[in-house]
């Protein structure tokens, strides 16, 4: 393999050598190279195999539109499939592999598919693989799936960091070619905030490879000067290596900055990629234009390349893509390639110009007019071509130019369709409301002078106008040739998905005639390049067979992402443990010291049980319950939603929120309340206390705290703004602990300052602001979820752990022990108190046995809808208790209920088990269930159906209150 590196020129640093491997073989290149340029320089052409036919494929482009040269980059947790060799900046130690071939790139068994090619036409799989049915999942599909896909992705975690950030500007300039640079410069000089983003590794756009002349210097020098000025302007942010992938509402742009993709491993503390959300007052799309291939026989053989790419490789990367070239063009830019190739010593056999008339462009190369290439000779590399007149030419490089397509993607992502411009034979961006404006070639301006002027005009809108430098214009004229009908062999429209001109004809023939049908039937434009090269050709071919114009056919829908974006970048730092924040109770530290096991409750993590040496969760919870019921226990209930409701109309407001009444609540007392949704279904419950005439302290369930707050805000702001009421979440201000059990009072008595806790001074449902531990503000409530004589004590959060410890100390003599959410839940189930599983958004207050709480005297949320026939029907499932007839049977949550004699069927379904617990008090598994017409069925024996774990057994329906019905312990 002899070197294709040119002796001089190019933007590469020849003084340094970078070592890398491709398919295990060692190569070397220079800083400034891409993987593609380095491989080409090493004479390596065959870089991949195609999707369906496994045809040999090589580099076609020099940028993000590359459909063929996709490789597996890096290894292990850093492995990236389908990475474009044309955009990978070479770094020392780079490792890449070719894809979709077995056993090797050179000898690929999959290539037999080419033999079957006549059958593998568009949509072939819809027509077969149907018999016998069972073969689909077992045989056909696995085979198809194995063939499909290109690279293979890693299943290991990614060791690199990712970051998200926001940016704001007056003007976002997308693209740093002549148009973009002028726009940015003009705006910058008017002192507005400018962001200039370009996906290239270096700013300058086409000036990095086109031999231009601007303001008397080379285009490259001019660009460097402009970039230097921009870099030194404080109100300008330059973002190279940054692809703007999408345009969203509010003129927000999504962009990915490849901060460290050009090195083997990011430096410590630095992200691999940064995802920007750029909020721009205005934006300029200076994205340039994409050169199109021509659709002709063998246009995918390695060595057939875009003419502009050939220029880019020779001028920017100092690589000769071949020794002897033939240029195939329908427009003037082919001539430019011929010119540049000769300038660097590559023989140009001929320019094949499909146009009859002579071109304005100079070349000095033998030019044949009104000719086309019908066939490319060569398998893994071009060795020659054949013209439509039969002539054969020897060559190892075909540089094709089918004209230029303005890069309008972003401008079309919010619904507008691009417009066909026959003069340049391309779609140009639609008119917008001015928040995103295309300039330069993206706007169909094909001459350098137009691009400079266009950019300057756009950027000058901020005051300072900018003089447009003089420049030399290359000729631009095109007369479309879309495909060579007399082609021999496959003529590709979409390289990556192996879609040919014939596939488009077939699709049309079979009735899939809309451009969107053609896309889906042939998969044209659906690969990783999203049809950057192929779509316009496909549209033109379709237009021709349908006998319609290209406008009439139109494009498919442009959508994000302009180029594919990694999951990692969009996830940013929010993965693994950091996917969502953790919310810790002020008693977390206290519970940790006592060896608690924690459990997730929404974002909260709560202490679930406090195991002693070797205890299972069940043993631990069992002990915690007994201890609370027989002695005294402490439980962290800080996560309950707590809302301070104040104001002259606070009571009236609560009366409208709750279905029961609060205006009658005495100061210093607490009351259990139920809120309904406006549709009459129960929403949430909790105790609310009156601390003073215009001050209430509301509590909500942990799960609904946020929703209740929003609901309160809605009700006040949107429904009753006239009420004088305000509300503040104080959930986090107060650490709250339940102290429950026969010795609760004795324990607390030792902690509170100068209050005697007796049934007269502090009766059931008392609620007072007191102090504890010698002056710490606190709120004490005599309420009980456990059914025991119990209190809930709130202290300011920073004192939480200290107070809890003090209580533990005070209770020592009484045998106090902490209990967690498991024990809490066991006790509430023993007492038949409802929780999330019963307040599940489908139950009415009546279903839960709380119907009598619904006032009939006042207007409140949910009152009217609760009266609907369906919500009153006697067959509704309502709350009951449940016990296994055979004490040994374990009831499982989620079991269903059937009449004893009935067989399983939806029609026979009587209800389900909502909550279960092992009851230490009853020494068996007990449950709460929602049972059709349950209230009338206490005592009935039912089948408890658990088909999932196929355990069915008998259970007896009972009152939901399993333990201490008379509430003797509560009042003890």
């Amino acid at each position, binding site marked *: 393999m002899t070197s294709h590196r040119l002796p001089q020129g190019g933007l590469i640093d020849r003084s340094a050598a970078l070592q890398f491997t491709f398919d295990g073989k060692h190569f070397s290149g220079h800083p400034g190279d891409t993987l593609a340029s380095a491989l080409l320089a090493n004479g390596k052409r065959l870089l991949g195999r195609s*999707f369906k036919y496994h045809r040999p494929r090589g580099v076609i482009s020099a940028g993000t539109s590359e459909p063929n040269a996709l490789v597996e980059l890096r290894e292990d947790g850093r*492995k*990236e*499939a389908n990475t474009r060799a044309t955009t990978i900046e070479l770094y020392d130690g780079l490792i890449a592999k070719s894809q979709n071939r077995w056993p090797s790139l050179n000898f690929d068994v999959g290539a037999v598919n080419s033999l079957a090619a006549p*059958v593998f*036409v568009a949509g072939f*799989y*819809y027509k*077969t*693989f*149907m*018999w016998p049915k069972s073969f689909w*999942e077992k045989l056909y599909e696995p085979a198809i799936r194995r063939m*499909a*896909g*290109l690279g293979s*992705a890693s*299943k*290991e975690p990614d060791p690199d960091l990712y970051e*998200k950030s926001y940016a704001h500007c007056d003007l976002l300039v997308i693209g740093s070619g002549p148009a973009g640079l002028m726009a940015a410069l003009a705006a910058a000089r008017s002192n507005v905030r400018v962001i200039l983003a370009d996906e290239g590794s270096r700013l300058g756009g086409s000036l990095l490879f086109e031999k231009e002349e601007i303001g008397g210097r080379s285009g490259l020098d001019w660009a460097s000067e402009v970039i230097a000025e921009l870099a030194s302007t404080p109100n300008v942010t330059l973002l190279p290596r940054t692809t703007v992938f999408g345009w*969203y509402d509010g003129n*927000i742009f999504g962009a990915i900055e490849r901060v460290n993709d050009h090195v083997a491993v990011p430096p410590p503390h630095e992200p691999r990629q940064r995802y920007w959300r750029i909020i721009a007052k205005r934006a300029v799309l200076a994205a340039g234009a994409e050169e199109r291939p021509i659709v002709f026989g063998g246009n995918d053989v390695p060595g057939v390349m875009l003419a502009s790419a050939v220029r880019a490789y020779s001028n920017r990367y100092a690589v000769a893509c071949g020794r002897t070239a033939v240029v195939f063009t329908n427009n003037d830019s082919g001539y430019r390639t011929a010119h540049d190739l000769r300038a660097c010593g590559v023989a140009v056999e001929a320019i094949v110009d499909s146009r009859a008339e002579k071109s304005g462009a100079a070349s000095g190369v033998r030019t044949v007019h009104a000719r086309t290439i019908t066939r490319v000779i060569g398998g893994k590399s071009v060795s020659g071509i054949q013209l439509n007149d039969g002539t054969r030419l020897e060559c190892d490089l075909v540089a094709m130019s089918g004209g230029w397509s303005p890069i309008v993607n972003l401008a079309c*992502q919010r619904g507008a369709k691009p417009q066909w411009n026959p003069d340049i034979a391309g779609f140009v961006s639609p008119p917008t409301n001015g928040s995103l404006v295309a300039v330069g070639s993206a706007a169909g301006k094909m001459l350098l002078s137009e691009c400079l002027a266009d950019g300057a005009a756009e950027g000058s809108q901020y005051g300072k106008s900018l003089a447009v430098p003089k420049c030399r214009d290359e000729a631009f004229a095109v007369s479309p040739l879309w495909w060579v009908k007399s082609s021999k062999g496959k003529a590709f429209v979409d390289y990556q998905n192996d879609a040919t001109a014939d596939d488009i004809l*077939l699709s049309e*023939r*079979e009735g*899939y005639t*809309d451009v969107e*049908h053609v896309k*889906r*039937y042939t998969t044209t434009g*659906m690969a990783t390049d999203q049809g950057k090269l192929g779509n316009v050709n496909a549209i033109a071919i379709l237009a021709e067979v349908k006998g319609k114009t290209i406008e009439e056919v139109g494009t498919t829908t442009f*959508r994000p*992402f302009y180029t*594919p974006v990694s*999951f990692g970048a*969009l*996830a940013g730092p929010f*993965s*693994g443990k950091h*996917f*969502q924040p*953790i919310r810790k109770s002020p008693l977390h530290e206290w519970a940790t010291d006592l060896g608690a096991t924690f459990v997730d*409750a929404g974002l909260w993590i709560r202490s679930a049980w406090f195991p002693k040496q070797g205890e299972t969760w069940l043993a631990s919870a069992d002990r915690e319950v007994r201890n609370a019921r027989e002695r005294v226990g402490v439980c962290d209930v800080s996560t309950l939603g707590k809302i301070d409701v104040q104001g002259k109309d606070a009571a009236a407001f609560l009366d409208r929120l709750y279905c029961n009444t609060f205006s009658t609540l005495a100061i210093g007392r607490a009351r259990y309340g139920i809120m309904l*949704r406006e*549709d009459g279904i129960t929403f949430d419950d909790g105790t609310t206390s009156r601390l003073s005439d215009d001050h209430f302290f509301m509590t909500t369930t942990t799960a609904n705290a946020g929703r209740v707050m929003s609901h309160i805000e809605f009700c006040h702001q949107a429904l009753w703004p006239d009420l004088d009421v305000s509300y503040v979440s104080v959930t986090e201000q107060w650490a709250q602990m339940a102290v429950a059990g026969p010795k609760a009072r004795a324990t607390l008595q030792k902690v509170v300052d100068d209050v005697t806790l007796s049934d007269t001074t502090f009766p059931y449902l008392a609620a007072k602001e007191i102090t504890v531990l010698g002056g710490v503000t606190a709120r004490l409530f005599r309420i009980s979820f456990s059914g025991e004589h119990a209190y809930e004590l709130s202290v300011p959060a920073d004192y939480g752990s200290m107070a809890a410890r003090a209580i533990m100390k005070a209770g020592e003599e009484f045998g106090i022990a902490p209990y967690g959410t498991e024990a809490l839940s066991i006790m509430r189930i023993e007492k038949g108190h409802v929780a999330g*599983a019963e307040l599940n*958004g489908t139950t009415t207050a009546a279903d839960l046995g709380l119907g009598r709480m619904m006032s009939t005297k006042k207007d409140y949320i949910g009152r009217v809808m609760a009266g609907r026939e369906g919500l009153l029907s006697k067959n509704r499932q309502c709350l009951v208790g449940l016990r296994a007839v055979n004490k040994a049977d374990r009831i*499982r*949550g*989620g079991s269903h209920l059937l009449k004893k004699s009935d067989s*399983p*069927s*939806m*029609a026979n379904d009587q209800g*389900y*088990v909502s909550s279960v617990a092992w009851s230490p008090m009853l020494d068996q598994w007990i449950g709460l269930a929602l049972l059709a017409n349950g209230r009338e069925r206490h005592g009935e024996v039912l089948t408890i*159906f658990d*088909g*999932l774990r196929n355990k069915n057994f008998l259970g007896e329906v009972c009152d939901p209150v399993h333990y201490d019905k008379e509430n003797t312990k509560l009042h003890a």
Partner: protein
Amino acid sequence: MTSFKEAVRRAKSLKTDMHYSVFSLLKNALSKHRNWTPAWREPEPKKNYDVVIVGAGHGLATAYYLAREHGITNVAVLEKGWLGSGNIGRNTTIVRSNYMLPENNPFYEWSMKLWERFEQDFNFNAMVSQRGVLNLCHTDAQYDAFARRGNAMRIDGVDAVLLEAEGVRRLYPFLDFDNGRFPIRGGLLQPRGGTVRHDAVAWAYARGADSLGVDIIQNCEVTGIRVDRGQVAGVETTRGFIGCRKLGVAAAGNSSEVAAMAGLKLPIESHVMQAFVSEGIKPYIEGVITFGAGHFYVSQSDKGGLVFGGDIDGYNSYARRGNLPMLEHVIEAGVAMIPGLSRVRVVRSWGGIVDMSMDGSPIIDKTHIDGLYLNAGWCYGGFKATPASGWCFAHTIACDKAHELNAAFRLDRFQRGYTIDEKGVGATPNLH
């Protein structure tokens, strides 16, 4: 109701003029595929039809079953865009019958049965692929809720498997079980669930209906509904007036707009639902997985792309495109569930306009206007329903009364308090 066997018999007796098979493929390969004929006609609309259906999604299935099950063939399906341009052509292809409520489960299970016969019914490979739908849960409470759902399925004879974390690990060892923010507690698996190639479903129904004489009229937007003395008389369209005595509306995101043409206001909001697809990669995910601690679900298409989505964006919309916040949430959840995805790339995002009903369940019913029938409220779950929805809607239109499978999908259920709320979030469409 027609027995399943009967349905199969009828289907078998169906023939289309161009049979698809390996042999026809080979034969045509010899003639360079020049002799394939269109899968459907592109007819001019007639002046009058017995039944006009608005919308070429469920509408295609409806027309097909009207013809096949009820012998009503003088039918037109009017589609404002190209056929399949609606949600049927932009959904994430998941089919399942893992519903909990008695009003839903039998309906979706019937749909599943029809999917299982699909290729044979249509002589069209829609790649019905029962690779299993797995829903993950992360807490005991979620686990019990799954048990309730799974037992509801079992009670109705539907397949369901409740898995502990270890069981999930055996299926998908590369999920993040222990190191994530919300460790995986277990999952509910429906082995018969899976995916079906969305576009192919539209094409198969279109080809099937067309071969039975149904006119499928594309690029024909209904702009008005003519009602005289409480009885439907026909529709105004961008291609002129088309008369009919019976009009079936299956317009998904546009239901409210179309219903308004007849003066109806619906318990529906139109929302944008986004979906995404990654670059094609070698086999990575066998079945369908749904994350329980964030909005993310994923499966892999036969082309190799990971097809995934999350929740609706949450605001009323008729624009088939969404915004960044939902994209970010979905991807964050995705990487949280499968850390290996970090270096996989998303290639495209899109949106569809879904008809969010007030209880998250569909409506298949007559309206108070004679001859006007409504099929709507599918939210983001109506693709799997396509066969049963078409089946029931055809029955409702043909017999002028609901089929027992859609008896509960009534329009007046909200007024009367018989809502069908699987999620229990009430009259908040953006939360269903």
